[in-house]
């Protein structure tokens, strides 16, 4: 696994901090495009065009879309990331998920959380050696620095976050 992370980081450093092709385009166009209006109607002010970085910082929990998304928002993240590997059919995941989100939100942006559905993103699950769910990884500067499998209570999760932020 260590080699894979190294590879990811190497790839990341090789590519300049330029957003991956295509994926950001819609976001940009949405943000910059003139808000919807039809002829004759009043045009809404440009306050609708929000800069991208604001949108990202507001989301402490997000769903991973694909491999490049993971690379970008988790491995390359400056903020430590908690990765919640879960599945639709997993009962304990449904309990842990909201609990994690609550504890992450309490950290006021010092930690963010990425959610990965292992059936939708089996390749990611394989890469990070996830066999049972829920599996939660703590990733800091592209490295897995902590991990647990199964349910934890709020106190245990708080401790997990504290350790990650420190």
């Amino acid at each position: 696994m260590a080699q894979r992370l190294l590879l990811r980081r190497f790839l990341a450093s090789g590519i300049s901090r330029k957003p991956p092709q295509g994926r950001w385009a819609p976001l940009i166009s949405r943000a910059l495009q003139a808000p919807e209006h039809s002829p004759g109607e009043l045009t809404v002010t440009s306050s609708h065009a929000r800069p991208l970085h604001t949108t990202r910082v507001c989301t402490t929990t997000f769903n991973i879309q694909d491999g490049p998304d993971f690379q970008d928002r988790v491995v390359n993240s400056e903020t430590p990331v908690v990765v919640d590997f879960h599945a639709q059919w997993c009962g304990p995941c449904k309990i842990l998920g909201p609990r994690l989100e609550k504890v992450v939100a309490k950290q006021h942006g010092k930690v963010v959380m990425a959610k990965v559905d292992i059936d939708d993103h089996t390749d990611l699950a394989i890469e990070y050696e996830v066999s049972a769910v829920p599996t939660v990884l703590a990733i800091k500067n592209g490295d897995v620095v902590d991990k647990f499998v199964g349910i934890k209570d709020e106190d245990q999760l708080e401790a997990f976050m504290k350790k990650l932020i420190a």
Partner: protein
Amino acid sequence: MSIFHNSVDSESKSKFLLQVKELFSSLGVEYNILELDQVDDGANVQEVLSEITNQKTVPNIFVNKVHMGGCDRTFQAHQSGLLQKLLQKESTYDYDLIVIGGGSGGLACAQEAAILGKKVMVLDFVVPSPQGTSWGLGGTCVNVGCVPKKLMHQAALLGQALKDSRKFGWEYNQQVKHNWEIMTEAIQNHIGSLNWSYGLSLREKSVAYVNSYGEFVERHKIKATNRKGQETYYTAAKFVIATGARPRYLGIQGDKEYCITSDDLFSLPYCPGKTLVVGASYVALECAGFLAGVGLDVTVMVRSVLLRGFDQEMAEKVGSYMEQHGVKFLRKFIPVMVQQLEKGSPGKLKIVAKSTEGPETIEGVYNTVLLAVGREPSTRKIGLEKIGVKVSEKSGKIPVNDMEQTNVPYVYAVGDVLEGKLELTPVAIQAGKLLARRLFGGRSEKCSYINVPTTVFTPLEYGCCGLSEEKAIEIHKKENLEVYHTLFWPLEWTVAGRDNNTCYAKIICNKVDNNRVIGFHILGPNAGEVTQGFAAAMKCGLTKQLLDGTIGIHPTCGEVFTTLEITKSSGLDITQKGC
């Protein structure tokens, strides 16, 4: 692989040729035989042959253009592993083994082959049912068979247990009712975890898994088409067909549009409501059973007999119990048309059925019509004709020899596609494992299809191992048989006030063979659990004497087999009077 032979020579040479042919067949290797006496230049060829090989005798065998020798040398090479090495050298195939079908048989075979160090691929693809249902890796058993069936059966049993519980002192005021969606979601979640674990297991054993539809295009080559229609080609030295079967439709108006099958039932997102089950197979009766058990209005439409192929006395008892407990039976009718009266989840369907004995027709209105009229092997559209694999015209099943080998030496088959073999998960698993061991592990053990136990999980369960009474009479003749039987009343049913004189146990003994137990039948709760142990005993050659010498565990249902006394031939009454 070339074998030079001369059949004019003595008998012993033919024996050697036969031995060599058998060896190559068992290894799944194709061979060409050149009979020198039938070739124009035969004598000359034989001379040249002896010059280049220093061998004057036949059979004279070449493996991948390397001279092997005669029969003895070939067998020696097989023992030492040299033969396998020579055979592998030609292998420029992508894989040692490709398994088409990721169900019970396919996965077992693939994983065993991988454990033995082979490069293996599994292709699994579920063509959506006419209603659009699909599922993940694992095959019928995991997704739309044994697993959800048993869980829904359990749901029904729990409903019965709740009813019994009051008699055992449990007091509650709530009206107990069943929520179909909660049950189905929970079951589907478990299936999801199984799909994942199967994928994980394949990855851990380095088996390549592709979610694509596999079909043969030419010798040793298949085309894999994924959901998006992208085609990839793969080659392998050997193939195993494990594509299983899918529910059959009736071929009547409205069947595919409006009816559901077991493929759809276990993930149906809404309660089926008032249901008509068409069929009398174990699928039909088990489904009808648990649907009634969770409180639905259920009718079963039967064309002729119940549980064809099973012991008919037991089958009728199974049906009779269901009838006594609220399942309606329409015997000797077949549907001719299904019409939709109302759309919905569920909607309303009208079904018209015709009697098999006369001109009578009946009509009925149901929310759901479940067809369980048999299963069709998935062998018609996988390109078998392109490579010459023989498929039984009528049944669609694949005939194999006792090594699960088809008529094409490098193609094998396991599971429900096999002709004349039991359609059971453990049978497919065993066959798959042993096949892999024979192909790649140098083992020779064949799969035994004798005394395979099974259980029908109807509301009153029926477990059996060995022969039905009809089959036993057919094979051994009635006068050579002794049938011991008894009715029994499970202790748990007494306080609950449930039927006495309903549960039934029967063994069939072969008088000519030490009163060997050749048929075991039980109708009662936990029949599956009870039957499993006795199946092992039968494998050890259980006789009536050994059974009598076994002390029973009390109080259980299974113990009745240790005290069987009354024979059918005596005509004595087996009705139980009190404890």
